[in-house]
C-alpha cells in the first residue's frame, strides 16, 4: 500500500521534481510528522536535519521523510488518519492529547519494538516522570522530546540592577516584593517596565501560573473522575495573587488578552523583568536579548525551601500501531531520541536532555554561561514538576483558567465565582 502510494507520488513528480526522487529508491521509507521543518534554520530544525542525515548515512536502506505539520492540528489530524488507516510511521503527540492518542489505540508498544532490547542502564537513563506518564499497563507508548518546564523566566541584568539575588526568591511574597522593586515608572507616572507578567489570552494558552499554587497546597487540579478542581482555597488565593499584581500596577492590565507570543515580545523589548515562561523558548529569547540576559529559576514556594511544582509539557514521540515499517521506525526513534540524538538536541537545539547521562556527559556545555536553564529545567523536572493526567482528556483547562482571569480583571467578577464557573465550563465541555 505504502509502496503503491510512493509510486503514485512519483508519477506526479512532473510538478515538484527534485525532492520526490529520493523516495523512488528501493529503500524502506519512514514517514514522520512533526512541527519542525528540517529545512528550516532554527536551532531545533538544524538539529533534526543533522539527525536525519546521520541516520540515513548509517542506515542506507532506510529513508526518513519528515512531513512538517501545523503544530496545533497535528494530533487531531493524526488520530483522523489513524482511523482511516493511513497515518505516518512516526508521530509527535503533545502532552494534553496524549491520553486520547493512547486510548485510541493509535500508538504501538515501544517495549516490544525497542525498549526490551535495551540494556538496563539505558532504561534507567530514561526513567523519570515523563517516562512513567507514557508507560501504561506495562506498555510504553512514547518517548518524550522537546521537554518543557514552565516556570519563572527573568532578566538577570535587571535583577542585579535592582539588587535582587534570584536565589532569594524563596516564597510567593518574595516574588511580589521583587516585582514591586522591578517596576519602573517614568516622570509622568507611566509604567515603563513591569515587574512580572504572564499571558492570559485563551489562544495559545500556557498553563496558568496559579496552578503551581494549587499543586503546592496538595490539592489536585483534577478530581480522580476528571472533574475540575480549580476553586479550592489555594486556587482562589493563587488567582488573587496574580490579579492583585495587575490591579497594583506590577503587572500590565493588557496581559488579560496577551498570548504567549505577545508576552515574549514584550519581554524581549525590555518591558517586563520577570515572566512565566517555558524552557523551550529560552534559546530564542537569548538570540534576541543576549545569552547573559535571560535566565530561569524554579517557582518559589508557599514556604521557603520548598519549590512549588511547575507544569511540564512536551512532545511524546510514538510509532503508529498500523505502520508497516515499525522496525525501521523504531530504529530511527532510537537514533533520534537516545543515541546519539539526545546530545544533538541539547547541544545544537538548546533542548533539555532526555537522558540523565547526557546531563553528565555535557556537563561542561550545560555549565556555560547562559546554558544553566538546561540544568534548572532538568532538576525541576525531577523534583518539582507536574504533568497533566492522561487517564482522562484535559483539553481546555488552560483556556478555562485564563478566561476566569479575564472575567475577574475586565468584568470585575468575584474570584471564587469565576473559578467555579470555569470548573463548570470545563466539566461540561468534557462531558463530565
Amino acid at each position, binding site marked *: 500500500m505504502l509502496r503503491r502510494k510512493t509510486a503514485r507520488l512519483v508519477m506526479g513528480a512532473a510538478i515538484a521534481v527534485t525532492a520526490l526522487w529520493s523516495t523512488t529508491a528501493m529503500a524502506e521509507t519512514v514517514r514522520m510528522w512533526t512541527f519542525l521543518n528540517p529545512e528550516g534554520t532554527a536551532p531545533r530544525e538544524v538539529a533534526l536535519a543533522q539527525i536525519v542525515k546521520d541516520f540515513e548515512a548509517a542506515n542506507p536502506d532506510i529513508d526518513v521523510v519528515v512531513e512538517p505539520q501545523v503544530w*496545533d*492540528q497535528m*494530533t*487531531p489530524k493524526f*488520530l*483522523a488518519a*489513524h*482511523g482511516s488507516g493511513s497515518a505516518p510511521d512516526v508521530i509527535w503527540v503533545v502532552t494534553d*492529547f496524549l491520553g*486520547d*492518542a493512547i*486510548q*485510541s489505540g*493509535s500508538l504501538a508498544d515501544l517495549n516490544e519494538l525497542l525498549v526490551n532490547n535495551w540494556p538496563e542502564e539505558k532504561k534507567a537513563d530514561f526513567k523519570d516522570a515523563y517516562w512513567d506518564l507514557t508507560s501504561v499497563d506495562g506498555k510504553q507508548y512514547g518517548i518524550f522530546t522537546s521537554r518543557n518546564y514552565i516556570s519563572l523566566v527573568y532578566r538577570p541584568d535587571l535583577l542585579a540592577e535592582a539588587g535582587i539575588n534570584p536565589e532569594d526568591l524563596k516564597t510567593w511574597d518574595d516574588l511580589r516584593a521583587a516585582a514591586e522593586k522591578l517596576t519602573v515608572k517614568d516622570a*509622568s507616572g*507611566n509604567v515603563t517596565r513591569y515587574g512580572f507578567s504572564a499571558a*492570559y*489570552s*485563551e*489562544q*495559545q494558552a500556557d498553563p496558568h501560573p496559579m496552578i503551581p499554587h494549587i499543586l503546592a497546597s496538595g490539592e489536585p487540579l483534577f478530581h480522580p473522575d476528571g472533574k475540575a478542581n480549580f476553586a479550592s482555597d489555594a486556587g482562589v488565593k493563587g488567582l488573587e495573587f496574580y490579579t492583585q499584581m495587575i490591579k497594583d500596577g506590577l503587572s*500590565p*492590565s*493588557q496581559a*488579560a*488578552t496577551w*498570548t504567549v507570543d*505577545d508576552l515574549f*515580545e*514584550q519581554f524581549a*523589548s525590555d*518591558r517586563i523583568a520577570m515572566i512565566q515562561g517555558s524552557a523551550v523558548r529560552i534559546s530564542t529569547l537569548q538570540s534576541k536579548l543576549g545569552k547573559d540576559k535571560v535566565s530561569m529559576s524554579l517557582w518559589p514556594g508557599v514556604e521557603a525551601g520548598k519549590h512549588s511544582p511547575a507544569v511540564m509539557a512536551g512532545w511524546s514521540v510514538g510509532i503508529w500501531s498500523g505502520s508497516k515499517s515499525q522496525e525501521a521506525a523504531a530504529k530511527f526513534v532510537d537514533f533520534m531520541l537516545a543515541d546519539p540524538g539526545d546530545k544533538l538536541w541539547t547541544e545544537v537545539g538548546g533542548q533539555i536532555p532526555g537522558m540523565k547521562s547526557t546531563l553528565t556527559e555535557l556537563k561542561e556545555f550545560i555549565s556555560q554561561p547562559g546554558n544553566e536553564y538546561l540544568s534548572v529545567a532538568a532538576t525541576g523536572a525531577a523534583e518539582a514538576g507536574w504533568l497533566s493526567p492522561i487517564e482522562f*482528556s484535559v*483539553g*481546555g483547562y488552560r*483556556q478555562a483558567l485564563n*478566561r476566569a482571569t*479575564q*472575567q475577574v*480583571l*475586565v*468584568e470585575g467578577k468575584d474570584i471564587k465565582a469565576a473559578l467555579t464557573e470555569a470548573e463548570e*465550563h470545563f466539566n*461540561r*465541555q*468534557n462531558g463530565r
Partner: protein
Amino acid sequence: MTSRSTGLLYIVPAFSALLLVLFSPVFYGVWFSLHHIRFGTVGNFVGLRNYSYLLTDPTFSGTISRTVFHTSLSVILTVAISLALALWVHSLPPRRGFLVQMIVIIPWITSTVVATLLFKWVFVSDIGMAMSILRMLNLPDIQFLNDPNSAMGLLIAVSVWKRLGYALIILLAGLKSIPEDYIEAASLDGAGSWQTFQHIILPLLKTPLLLVVIVLTLSNINTVESPLVLTGGGPGSATRILAIDVFDRAFVNYDLASATSLALIMFLCNVLLVLAYVRLSKWKV
C-alpha cells in the same frame, strides 16, 4: 436553443468537480455529526444528540447574538465606506483612480493571519508604532483590548479594513457599467445629485451590491483567523463569535462531534442567508 440535454451536458464537468470536492463532504459531514465521535473516528449512531447538546449549551445564545452583531455591523460599514470610495474613485482620472484602488486592496490580498498580526503590532500593541507616537506626544495609551466594547469595535474595524478592497473592486465595476447617458439624462431633467444617486445609480447597482453583501456576510461569519489573532475571543467572552467557538471546540477541546455539528448549523445559516438575499433582491436567474 431547445435541446434540453445539451445544457446539462455543458455543466457536467463543473458539477463533477463541485460534487466531489464541495457537496459530498457536506453529506459526509452530516453523517459524521449523527454519530458518536471519539478520537476522530466514527462510533455509534446517536441521532441528533450532538445537536441537542449544542442547543442546551448556556453560552450558545450569547455567541449567536455577538456573531449577528459583529457580522451585520461589519457588513454595513464595509458596504457604506466602499460605496463612498467607489463613487469617489469613479470620478477620478483613471491613473489616479487605479492608484487609490491598489492602495485599498492591499489588506485584501495579504494573507489574513500575517495582515492581522502586522496590524496588531503596528496599531494595537503597546510596543508598536502607534502607541509610541502617542507617548511621544504625551498622550495616554489606548488599550483597545482591555475593554469589552472597544475590543469588539476593534474586531469590526479590522474586518472592515481587511475586506474593503474586495467590495471596492466589485462596486467600482458596477458603477462603470452604468451608461453615462443615464446620469446625464437625469441631470438634464434637473434631478439633484442625491436624487440621481438614490433613483438612478442605486437601483442599477443592485446586483453588485447583492454580490458584495453576500460575500461579505459569509466571510465575516466564517473567518476565524483574524479574531483568533486579534482578540482570541476575549476579554472575557466579549468577542467570542461563532467561528472562534467552532475552532476551539475542534482544536482546543478536540470535541469534533460538537464542532462538526455547529459548523453544519453555520453552513445551513449561510445557505439560507444566500437564498434570502437572492429572494429579497428579486435577482433573476
